[in-house]
């Protein structure tokens, strides 16, 4: 059996793990246009910040490919999938046959058209090479303008702040981190990040760029020594689309992670997922999601039948030492507690916990996450304890025994 995986990040590694659970002998080939041994993309900001060495960027140990019988084909780009011939074609013309194919191509930075941008040197912040490029230029006291107050933009801001840069973040939206936080939490985080020297200009966008200045639509001009564009990402769907596979905002798969093409699977940021918390299909660009989709796909590629069912949006992130964990949907009845440094929002719908945001005190948040994923009815849960903090005590003795007493499903 020949397994081919396009991509070399979390979804790809999950796929290898999934395949190897049930097939210890089949050939696995990983093809990636990046030259690196599998590394962790979310770590690029930590690397840029100086908290992680290049060696520790590795997502899996150096002997991972060898131990798992994987042939890595690195620094070479796949240009085409030929579902009829069951092969993929590389840019140098090489064809690699597959019996089962995984498309784990992830996403790419989205750079919208902006006046004058074509004449300005700017960076995106998505992969190791982009981080290295920034690192090579950043200097103490340098003025950095970041377009985009989302996760990527702010992680870049944090990392660059550690490098001594003076940072201004501009976003069209009127609040930061809109994808994971509600308004109130956004304001809270904004204040906190501002207290670490980052300046925000919100609710406006760049009208025009000149070499070292951005003129904003609100009339303000911002000088910069370095420009980073981090307004969003777009899934890499072209290979599948070109081969005739169904693609929407991302690659469409069924619950087994199979695309509309025979023997072609997809996983990770390039796909559209079903969000169990909001009952909608959306892109869930999260590392755990990518890995687990890959794992499910890998198992199915090895001939089993698994379904990936309870995906939800969720995020764990921190800025300047303040942690945020959030998950699920914020559509429902809210319970909020707030202190100077902490924020807690619980969202209930249909007698279930469907979403939450924790800032500051994030301990044991996974208990909430599991309640959302497992759609636990709150009938036999002590609501007061649930609101107090994530704890096993809120469950009845029977459920506790089931969870803690060694009865594994």
């Amino acid at each position, binding site marked *: 059996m020949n397994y081919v995986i396009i991509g070399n990040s979390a979804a790809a590694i*999950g796929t290898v793990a999934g395949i190897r659970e049930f097939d210890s002998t089949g050939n696995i080939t990983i093809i990636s246009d990046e030259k690196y041994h599998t590394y*962790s993309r*979310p*770590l690029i900001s*930590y690397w840029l910040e100086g*908290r*992680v060495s290049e060696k*520790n960027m*590795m*997502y*899996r*140990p150096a002997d991972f490919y060898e131990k798992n019988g994987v042939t890595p084909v690195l620094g070479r780009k796949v240009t085409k999938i030929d579902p009829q011939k069951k092969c993929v074609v590389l840019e140098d013309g090489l064809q690699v046959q597959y019996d089962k194919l995984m498309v784990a191509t992830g996403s790419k930075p989205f750079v919208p058209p902006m006046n004058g941008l074509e004449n300005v040197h700017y960076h995106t912040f998505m992969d190791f090479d982009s981080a290295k490029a920034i690192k090579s230029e950043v200097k103490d006291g340098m003025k950095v303008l970041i377009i985009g107050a989302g996760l990527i933009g702010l992680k870049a801001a944090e990392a660059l702040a550690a490098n001594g840069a003076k940072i201004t973040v501009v976003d069209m939206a009127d609040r930061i981190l809109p994808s994971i936080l509600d308004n109130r939490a956004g304001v809270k985080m904004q204040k906190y990040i501002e207290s670490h020297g980052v300046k925000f200009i919100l609710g406006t966008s760049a009208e025009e760029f000149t070499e070292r200045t951005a003129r904003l639509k609100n009339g303000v001009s911002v000088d910069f020594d370095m420009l980073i564009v981090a307004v969003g990402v777009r899934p890499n769907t072209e290979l599948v689309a070109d081969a005739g596979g169904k693609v929407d905002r991302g690659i469409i798969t069924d619950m087994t992670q199979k695309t509309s093409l025979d023997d072609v699977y997809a996983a990770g940021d390039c796909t559209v997922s079903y969000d169990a918390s909001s009952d909608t299909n959306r892109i869930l660009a999260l*590392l*755990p999601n990518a*890995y*687990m989709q890959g*794992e499910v796909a890998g198992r199915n590629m090895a001939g089993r039948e698994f379904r990936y069912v309870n995906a939800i949006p*969720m*995020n*764990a*992130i*921190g800025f300047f*030492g303040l*942690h945020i*964990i959030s*998950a699920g949907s914020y559509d429902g009845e809210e319970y909020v507690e707030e202190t100077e440094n902490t924020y807690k929002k619980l969202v209930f719908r249909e007698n279930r916990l469907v979403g939450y945001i924790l800032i500051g005190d*994030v*301990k*044991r*948040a*996974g*208990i909430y*996450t*599991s309640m959302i*994923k*497992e759609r636990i009815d709150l009938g036999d849960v002590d609501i007061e304890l649930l609101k107090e903090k*994530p*704890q*096993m*005590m809120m469950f009845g*003795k029977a459920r*506790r025994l089931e*969870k*803690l*007493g*060694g*009865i*594994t*499903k």
Partner: protein
Amino acid sequence: MKKVYVNEDWCLACHLCEFYCAAANSGADSMIKAFRDGKKPVPRIQVEEGSEVNFAVQCRHCDEHPCVKGCIAGALSVSDEGVVSCDENKCVGCGTCILSCPYGCIVPDEEAHVIRKCDLCVKNHNGAPACVEGCPNNAIVFEER
């Protein structure tokens, strides 16, 4: 696989398990040294106190191990025996495992910017789980179930 289990009928919420755990994993060779000068090493076991029952929770080393699957740094791994442990040199303290663990068993160490979790004392000098040995009422046991 032998795991640590807590019988909530017998847990006294004395919290000794937390201290034995913290000391055993602190790298210090005695509890006094581990807590010297007001240091507060982080335990990997946490006691929940209720009005009638108490119990301690620690990593279940569950089959699903979502913490390992979600770890962005590749710091968490499962041994062949099934023990989930964390390479604290690789951990960046992002908290994704805290987000993922359904038992709430992964503990942030705010000072060290890493997480701490139970590895059944396989790595420290203790040999057997320190919480089990330190429990004065046999509420914590290490056994196959």
